[in-house]
């Protein structure tokens, strides 16, 4: 059971230092990524998704970020304690990352080939022509048929979708064990979006690379993820298989999110939105973080923070007081 986890975040606490105050942004986040799975990380803007992903690669600027009492296990190595040299060997080689903005993620002054080779030659000792072959092969595997020509082209000569393919190629060129994708389709239009999603799913199936897929788009999660984690205010509020979470959401926030997805079949006058907005980090001192926006909130919700309870045997978990009594009722209403 334990050996098929590629990455295990045992606990993660991140704060940001402002002038004098320390503001907590990530609170006791813990999850595992299994080998070969696509794990979705969902939440509104400001829920801590990107910070979590950056902290895995040790890319959070510190200061102002402070990581305390945290442990991220990649095989036997604690990535929090790892030295900069160790991290440089892991980044791009065993864990790699793609970003939201394909337009700005490539250095405008170098050709695509130049940037791909940079990554390959950093991590593998290969001759120039061998490295070149690998790059062209990787570009072809991400669906760029003109790979040889693209190697000599500058980023500004490519379209957004092609650039994101190049970014994926850059991330995949060393065949990493984990690919962290931070909203890779947000900046793309819908047709390109579905091509990129299809590509990522194919790569996942072909190479067995685990994917941590960060998004705020539940439709995307349903399309490609195996498991999903819902984050709110720097905490995990619900975790489970995509089927469980979508069919049988337990946390009111997850339910709100699912309700907010517009449905073309029933004509609504008004689109549903969860009232209020994400609380500013540090503004809520006690109780459940979601309570002020929750329609089911009771007195206890403002006093104590609920535990993260396991609901089913295959790991569907939720952080809500309702699950303990109301949970039974909601479980059946599908």
């Amino acid at each position, binding site marked *: 059971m334990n050996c098929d986890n590629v990455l295990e975040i045992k606990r993660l606490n991140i704060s940001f230092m402002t002038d004098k105050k320390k503001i907590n942004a990530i609170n006791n986040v813990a999850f595992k990524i299994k080998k070969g799975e696509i794990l979705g990380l969902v939440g509104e803007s400001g829920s801590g998704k990107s910070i979590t992903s950056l902290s895995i*690669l040790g890319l959070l600027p510190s200061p102002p970020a402070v990581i305390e009492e945290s442990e991220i296990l990649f095989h036997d190595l604690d990535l929090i304690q790892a030295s900069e040299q160790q991290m440089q060997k892991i*980044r791009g080689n065993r864990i790699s990352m793609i970003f939201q903005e394909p337009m*700005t993620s490539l*250095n405008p002054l170098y050709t695509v080939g130049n940037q791909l080779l940079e990554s390959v030659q950093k991590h593998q000792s290969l001759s120039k022509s061998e490295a070149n072959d690998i790059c062209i092969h990787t570009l072809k595997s991400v669906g760029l048929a003109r790979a040889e020509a693209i190697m000599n082209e500058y980023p500004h*000569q490519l379209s957004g979708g*092609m650039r994101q393919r190049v*970014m994926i190629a850059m991330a995949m060129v060393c065949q990493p064990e984990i690919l962290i994708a931070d909203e890779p389709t947000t900046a793309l239009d819908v047709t390109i979006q579905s091509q990129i999603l299809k590509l990522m799913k194919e790569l996942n199936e072909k190479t067995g690379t685990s994917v941590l897929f960060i998004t705020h788009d539940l439709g995307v999660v349903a399309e490609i993820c195996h498991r999903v984690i819902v984050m709110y205010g720097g905490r995990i509020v619900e975790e489970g298989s995509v089927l469980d979470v979508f069919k049988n959401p337990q946390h009111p926030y997850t339910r709100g999110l699912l309700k907010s997805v517009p449905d073309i079949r029933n004509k609504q006058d008004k689109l549903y939105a969860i009232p209020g907005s994400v609380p500013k980090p540090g503004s809520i001192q006690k109780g459940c973080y979601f309570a002020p926006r929750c329609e089911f909130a009771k007195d206890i919700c403002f006093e104590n923070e609920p535990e993260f309870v396991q609901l089913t045997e295959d790991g569907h978990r939720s952080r809500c007081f309702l699950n303990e009594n109301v949970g039974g009722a909601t479980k059946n209403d599908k």
Partner: protein
Amino acid sequence: MKNEEIVEKEKTPFREFWESFRANRLALVGLGIVFFFIVIAIFAPLLTSYAPDSQNLADRLLPPSASHYFGTDDFGRDLFTRVVYGARLSLWVGFLSVLGSALIGTFLGIVAGYYGKWLDTIISRFFDILLAFPSILLAIAIVAILGPSLQNALIAIAIVNVPTFGRLVRSKVLSVKQEEYILAARAIGMGDTRILTHHILPNSIAPVIVQGTLAIATAIIEAAALGFLGMGAQAPMPEWGKMLADSRQYLTDAPGTLFFPGFAIMFTVLGFNLIGDGLRDALDPKMK
């Protein structure tokens, strides 16, 4: 299919820059002027049969004529020869001092911008102190310490211009290091040195090129000013500023001794300024 839609003519970044620069008439004029002075400086011995410091006291302060195109100065030296040889000195001081201040300034600016924290504080305060002095006053002070000579004037001008480059690069680095491709480079495992030299430096250098061209103009003026004040080139060097200083007494008798070196300074400086403005427009992505 989607791969074919963007097969267009390939433009290298340099080519793109040149096309935009070429469209600017004034910049081309500037380039012409500077090119003209560079050619004069290189081929100085071929342009004149006199030596710049050969005196002929019988021919003092002659007006322009066929044998002395610009006339002669108070020692009977051929003014045309001296102005032509002076181009060597002024361009040399201009290029070399700016190269020096650009190298030092860029290095300090990158270190301050990239590493930040206490290094940034120290370097930035150092720049502030240098900038607190009027530049010509600081140059004079430095020359006063080192002793007056053209070489020391060059060093003084280089030092005075360091903070301009340093601040410029620092601010550019501060914005470039926030770019996503820097984070992406980090995410594929690049170390600090590699990111600095391959990603930050090339993306921060464009304003340095513009500032460098404009600074050459200022440096030439400052060298002439130091020469004029007796703090730069020493007699008998044919330095334009020094020539201006020597001409003061004979202003009414031989106005040529003032005009010709003066025009030479004016035109080189104008040339570099026009190029600088053209470069700024051509390299600024917002103007396209």
